[in-house]
């Protein structure tokens, strides 16, 4: 199914990609081509078939719920753009 320019702008906004207006047209063309190929999925007979979310071992292994040492805050924040009092500082939220 084709994806139009408005839809491209919408997903780019949702994903915070800051897409240039000039790139919207090209993205719409490329995504349309890809989605046409992906539309092959619509021909699959999936009636009554459960989705697979995870392969490998079923379930989740557990461990004891005990507090253990973790990464010190200053090391965890070492690569941040800006920090203050052990927190990540960001620009104004509008």
């Amino acid at each position: 199914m084709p994806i139009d320019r408005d839809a491209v702008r919408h997903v780019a906004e949702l994903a915070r990609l800051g897409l240039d207006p000039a790139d919207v047209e090209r993205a719409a063309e490329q995504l349309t081509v890809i989605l046409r190929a992906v539309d092959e999925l619509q021909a699959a007979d999936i009636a009554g078939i459960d989705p697979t979310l995870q392969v490998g071992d079923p379930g989740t292994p557990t461990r004891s719920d005990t507090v253990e040492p973790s990464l010190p805050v200053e090391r965890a924040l070492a690569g941040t753009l800006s920090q203050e009092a052990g927190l990540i500082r960001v620009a104004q939220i509008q």
Partner: protein
Amino acid sequence: MSWLLRPLTEQAHALRSGAVTSAELVEETLRRIGCLDGRVGAFLRVTPEDARAAAHAADLRLRAEGEAAPDLCGIPIGLKDVLCTEGVETTAGSRILQGFVPPYSATAALRLAEAGAVAVGKCNCDEFAMGSSTENSAYQPTRNPHALDRVPGGSSGGSAAAVSAGLVTVALGTDTGGSIRQPAGLCGVVGFKPTYGRVSRYGLIAFASSLDQVGPFARTVRDCALVYRAIAGPDRRDATCSAREVEDPCPQLSLGVAGLRLGVPVEYVEAGLEPGVRRVFDEACQRLAAAGAGIEPVSIPSTRFALAAYYVIAPAEASSNLARMDGLRFGPGRPDARTLREQLEEARHHGFGPEVQRRIMLGTYALSRGYYDAYYRRAQQVRTLVAQDFARAFAKVDAILAPTSPTLAFRLGERLTDPLAMYQSDVCTVPFSLAGVPAVSVPAGSAEGLPVGLQVAAPTFADALCLRVAQAVETACGVAEPPALALEPVR
């Protein structure tokens, strides 16, 4: 011939007999990288001082422990740049992580370090492992050591090329839809994607979490098995890592294929293979038959839907995983932006390359309201069909044989502007990824002077059997010759 072109097993023996030291192996590695990698581009960064210190420690350990030292002790290795390494810049081939120095190491990298392996640097890859040619790296393309005008495959093209050119003995890569096997096939080395959940993903920068798996590249199947044995096994830091005990593949390697039933999916060989790939594949099957294997056709009818399902599921997971790349927690960021929204949009717009942006948009679209059922849920249902098809096939046969790539290594730039053509590179590898089964690419011959890989897949957690059959392929077809570039004198 350079030590680096000899099997790990031979290097390990020489390290114990005193014929060579780890320090000498590492100096040879650094010399070879200095001399050859300008043309190949396998490494994004080399860490000579860390490597020399690790080699010194390995030599002391080899002296103290002798035969009891781990197989990998003192062996030079490369690590794909999506694996976090404490204190060493890790970028995943992306601008958005430029300058990121992780405060911890990936479990797989740590296990190799604990075994005494010497990491010499970080290998190039497609940005966030998204690609099949390593041209999507934000820093440099990697070239195929067998033909420098051709791609090494991807996304772990740097790791594959590094082993192929004899820059390191072994390397780690990651495989989401074929990113270990396809470059291994195109570069003429062995590349193994273990069962999903067999190797910890802790410290691996996530692309598609339900598919990503870490695995080794090496010149021989036995070397691959030794690395796999060192990195596989439970890890309390990765909840998807299996708690099952790891079956040691090494004792089974020489058992051969006599009496085994090997299936060839008809859908893989019916159409789309280049003639050279088809010829090498057919000849390898004949050799395995001569070694006593029963070769029989099997059918994986869902094959026609597998690539489409993959290119919904992987981008959907990627769009979620890459949300954390905000330029705030790590990476260069945008300190001059006025609002948080501007910070995010500018960091991501300038930080992500075109393919990553494309896949994020595709994934966001597939997960958005109104399209979720038509794309994401349907793709997951098709994933069930693929897994069911393989389960049916493995009820009939012990392992499956398939070509690794439908084509030989293609030229740089050839598919860069045609995303769909690039995605087709994964057509033979993706179905096994969706099913989560182990699969390995082994050199099976060459066509037009370029390597051709054969893929062996086995049932879930039958990783040892997968490597056993791969060893039989190697025995039948021979270890691939290194490229001419790797044999050049190095000073």
